[in-house]
């Protein structure tokens, strides 16, 4: 494949722009784990080789395959720029968003492996059952709880208090963190990093009054104490959230009861 690329580059001289842009293309192979229970009980690997600009996203490569080679290839996607959280998948063994991963950054000289995220039931190809993930999220009371009369204007919050939980407000619920966690792989009952991140977002919000309740939920046997601090979640987060740090802060709050 490397040779083919070089030949292509060599043959493209300073000619018209169409040829010039063609010379940007490289040949890559995507090795995709396919599964369709309507067809077969087991999953299998399938290779697709295509020409693509290395500055394109893995999502663009998947689209090229779906649109031009095999319409049955199935994956979720929507915004295509890392905001909606639809297309978390395991690319070269690491959880990433397909729309935020450029081909050139993941060693396109070797086949690029693409698999569904782990720990959630695969429904078809790269589509997994998200329900257990969202259930864990819903279980941590992911909403502001306040007592007493509402103020007529906004609640006041200092910039420092607002900053305290800024990092965990970035979560897009893509499940890249939770499905990278070895504890979650072994035991789907564990809340998982994303649910804890979203609990953190409210526990450390100065306006919220249900921190104790959320801490009790996370004090459960399937709660924060299951975390083994492997940092997979932090590495996986496409939003750059310091997930492990957030989990540690929740653990500390459980011990000190200060937050």
């Amino acid at each position, binding site marked *: 494949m490397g040779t083919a690329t070089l030949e292509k580059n060599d043959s493209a001289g300073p000619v018209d722009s169409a040829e010039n842009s063609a010379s940007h293309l490289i040949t890559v192979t995507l090795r995709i784990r396919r599964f*369709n229970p309507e067809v077969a009980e087991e999953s299998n690997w399938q290779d697709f080789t295509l020409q693509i600009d290395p500055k394109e996203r893995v999502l663009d490569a998947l689209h090229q395959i779906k649109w031009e080679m095999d319409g*049955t290839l199935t994956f*979720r996607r*929507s*915004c295509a*720029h890392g*905001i909606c959280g639809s297309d978390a998948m395991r690319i070269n063994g690491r959880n990433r968003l397909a729309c935020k991963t450029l081909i050139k950054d993941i060693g396109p000289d070797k086949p690029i492996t693409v698999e569904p995220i782990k720990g959630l039931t695969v*429904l078809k190809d790269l589509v997994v059952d998200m329900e257990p993930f969202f259930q864990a999220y819903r279980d941590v009371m992911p909403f502001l709880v306040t007592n007493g009369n509402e103020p007529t204007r906004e609640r006041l919050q*200092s910039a420092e208090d607002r900053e305290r939980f800024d990092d965990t407000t970035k979560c897009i619920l893509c499940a890249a963190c939770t499905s990278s966690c070895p504890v979650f792989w072994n035991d789907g009952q564990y809340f998982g990093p994303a649910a804890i991140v979203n609990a953190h977002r409210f526990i450390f919000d100065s306006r919220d009054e249900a921190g104790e309740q959320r801490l009790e939920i996370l004090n459960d046997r399937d709660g924060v104490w299951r975390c083994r601090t492997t940092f997979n979640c932090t590495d996986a987060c496409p939003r750059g959230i310091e997930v492990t740090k957030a989990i540690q802060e929740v653990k500390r709050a459980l011990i000190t009861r200060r937050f």
Partner: protein
Amino acid sequence: MQIHKYDTVIVGAGGAGMRAAIESTKRSRTAVLTKLYPTRSHTGAAQGGMAAALANVEEDNWEWHTFDTIKGGDYLVDQDAAEILAKEAIDSVLDLEKMGLPFNRTPQGRIDQRRFGGHSRNHGEAPVRRSCYAADRTGHMILQTLYQNCVKEGVEFFNEFYVLDLLLNEVDGVKKTAGVVAYELATGEIHVFQAKAVVFASGGNGKFFKVTSNAHTLTGDGQAAAFRRGLPLEDMEFFQFHPTGIWKMGILLTEGARGEGGILRNKDGERFMEKYAPVMKDLASRDVVSRAIYTEIREGRGCGADKDHVYLDLTHLPPEQLDAKLPDITEFARTYLGIEPYTDPVPIQPTAHYAMGGIPTNVEGEVLSDNTTPVPGLYAAGEVACVSVHGANRLGTNSLLDINVFGRRAGIAAAEYSATADFVELPENPTKFVEDEVENLRDATGNERVVEIRKALQETMDKNVMVFRTEQTLKEAVEEIGQLRKRFRNISVQDKGKRFNTDLLEALELGNLLDLAEVTAVSALARKESRGGHYREDFPNRDDVNFMRHTMAYREVGDDGTESIRLDYKPVVQTRYQPMERKY
């Protein structure tokens, strides 16, 4: 086929749908149907803020906001609706804060505000700080906050249910809402949702353009379903091109970047907006800035080898300010362009962004079947709807506002209606249309491919129906879309399965885009004037005598089954603002 019965059904779970659901669930048994998961909706991609005259950082009031909205919309705005939007903006923002939205704060702990395009102090004197924001992910925060509150209220969601048809049935000579038909993606099963009230909140249709900030899934499903059932679409020729999309990709870079002090520059480094809008400069309304960018490019002052873009320059802003206020968009520049915005200008071009037009509603969110008559039980809110608060051009930060104000109104109105109304009997054979559509596509063996037709559609729309339009380009578009619609009848999909058949889904979406593209081009061809986002080079001036009116497009089916589009017009509601020449 499964049949479900709910008082109120909401179609779409973005900002408008979830804001409606929070109200509706408190008052009636409600189901929310979305073809995605709620948090995947494109509200989450909105960045810059939500306008409200809170006056937290400087003098401001809702009357100034009303004026700016009407002027921004080039006087095609219904003024009574704009007044409601601006007045209720204040409570809308405060409601979101009380629901938990983490707005950026002032040193006094109040909601912070920043400048945005077209928002001014005292009727155009100078830019005003009116946009309430949470860094450059305000839409994300609104979407998350609304979803959180839906969880809190126990809103019932049907995720990955794709609504393909609206059911209406005649009762005593009046067409009333009976429900919707949905296709369950996971199983391929068809579901009927019988409902007293239906709220469409299914978002925009920008995917008929190639360079667009819109998600792949924004295919006008609600507009197309209503249109097929004989309901009109209003002002579809008005589409907003956001000035700053990432070059070639179209990914949105918020106007907040210019609100924070960012400057647009041509290849000579000139701040060209000074020529086009001496007062508001880079913060003129979006239609004005997008035309200015293309004028620079056409006159040879574009940047790069092909001179096909301009620069958004943030290099003079302190890195701390970029990190605190614009972290996402600076990261987009790094990720997708390999550019460091601290030190290098970012290549941008206008990107198809927002449909001002849509399903016509009154200020209660009731859908209209003609210029004035509501369809009992049918509501719409958000980008799918046309109230019209945006007229010919929407102001930045007014869409996050629109979804909250009119999502709330539609949710309350729908639930109050369903509290007293009776269920309307389902029409005979309610799933016939959807079943035929799905089966025909799945079984089709034609030689046309979805990707080819979609590509051709997007290319003709970009070429002919973009920032600059003429009779010739629009005729070409109408002609080509007509050809594509014929070719579409001969498509086939490769995936013949039932489970998560996204191949089939894309074909259904393309059908919707083709219908709506045709309405857009036909409406644009008939509007022989320039106003807001609709610019006709052959009619460069606004013509209030002939065109101070909304376009209403109807689908007509002849006795022989031939389809055509009939255009009618609706007067603009004017209250206290007389149309003036628009200058920024």
